[in-house]
């Protein structure tokens, strides 16, 4: 292409020089399409989880007295631990990305595996928690609190699961030698998703578990 494009390089050179060469893709905003799209998607997800959280809060306020409620089932110390686990997975995620940016492939893999494992631990904790709640008598259809609680945390859990799948995919790519600092953006975007899921849990943990019932 270079020969065809050469006439115009001269023309646009003045504009291009201010730009740090080819480090940035030549888009209007300077952001890559993928990154912009990911943030748009996350913006949209705010409304999704907002609706679910609002539904939960409303449902809880409408729970008839005497029905099995949050106070009867929640185990705050346990959930605190799993919340902490998810929070720390965000740290390992940024460390993975940072390793990849430096080209430390081995470290990258270690941190990615750690992130996925922490995520897996969180999911395992959630499964355990659901089982305990179920055994306490809180099924999905038991009452309005049960429906809202399982739906909200279930949606979040599904997001985490998808995140784990994506993390494992990057791991496979890395092992097959298809990942390099040049395309670290893919990992960065998965990280964004992962952190988003984490901040959703920050909200859920406080609003659903810690708020005085």
């Amino acid at each position: 292409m270079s020969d065809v494009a050469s006439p115009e390089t001269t023309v646009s050179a003045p504009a291009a020089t201010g730009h740090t060469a080819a480090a940035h893709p030549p888009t209007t905003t300077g952001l890559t399409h993928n990154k912009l799209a990911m943030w748009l998607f996350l913006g949209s997800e705010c409304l999704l989880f907002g609706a679910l959280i609002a539904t939960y809060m409303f449902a809880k306020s409408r729970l008839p007295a005497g029905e099995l409620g949050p106070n009867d089932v929640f185990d705050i110390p346990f959930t605190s631990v799993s919340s902490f686990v998810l929070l720390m997975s965000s740290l390992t995620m940024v460390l993975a990305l940072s390793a990849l940016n430096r080209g430390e492939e081995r470290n990258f893999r270690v941190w990615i595996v750690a992130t996925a494992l922490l995520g897996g631990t969180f999911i395992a904790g959630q499964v355990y928690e659901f089982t305990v709640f179920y055994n306490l008598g809180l099924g999905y259809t038991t009452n309005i609190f049960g429906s809202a609680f399982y739906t909200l945390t279930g949606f979040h859990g599904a997001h985490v699961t998808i995140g784990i799948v994506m993390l494992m995919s990057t791991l496979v790519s890395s092992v097959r030698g298809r990942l390099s600092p040049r395309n670290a953006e893919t990992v960065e975007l998965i990280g964004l998703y992962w952190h988003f899921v984490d901040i959703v849990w920050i909200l859920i943990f406080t609003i659903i578990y810690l708020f005085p019932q």
Partner: protein
Amino acid sequence: MTQTPSVPTEAAEDVQPADAETEDVAAEHDAEHEHPSDRQYVKVALILGALTALEVATYFESVHHLGDAALYALLVVLMVLKFIYVVAWFMHLKFDSVILRRIFVAGIVLALGVYLVMLTAFRIWGA
């Protein structure tokens, strides 16, 4: 194609003022390179851990003399702090393009707005 003679345009009338938002982007872009170091990330994680510990502490009897309103306020503040730390540092929004920030903030503000109004219409507060 040959050069076509053209009458000078009345620039003042036709050329719209350049859009400030897009103009900024390129300049602002350099900020993106300031990746925080791993040490900073760990520091943020420690802060997050501490905030979580504070939050969990409220669950236990000792703070309940504060009263519900103060407890809610404290929890919300801690939650928002954690939220901001993750978004700003881990999600890199602090260092990223202003466009991304606006998109995300738009989502959050809209969500907060409509759902708070909805819950208020249901009068669930203080229930």
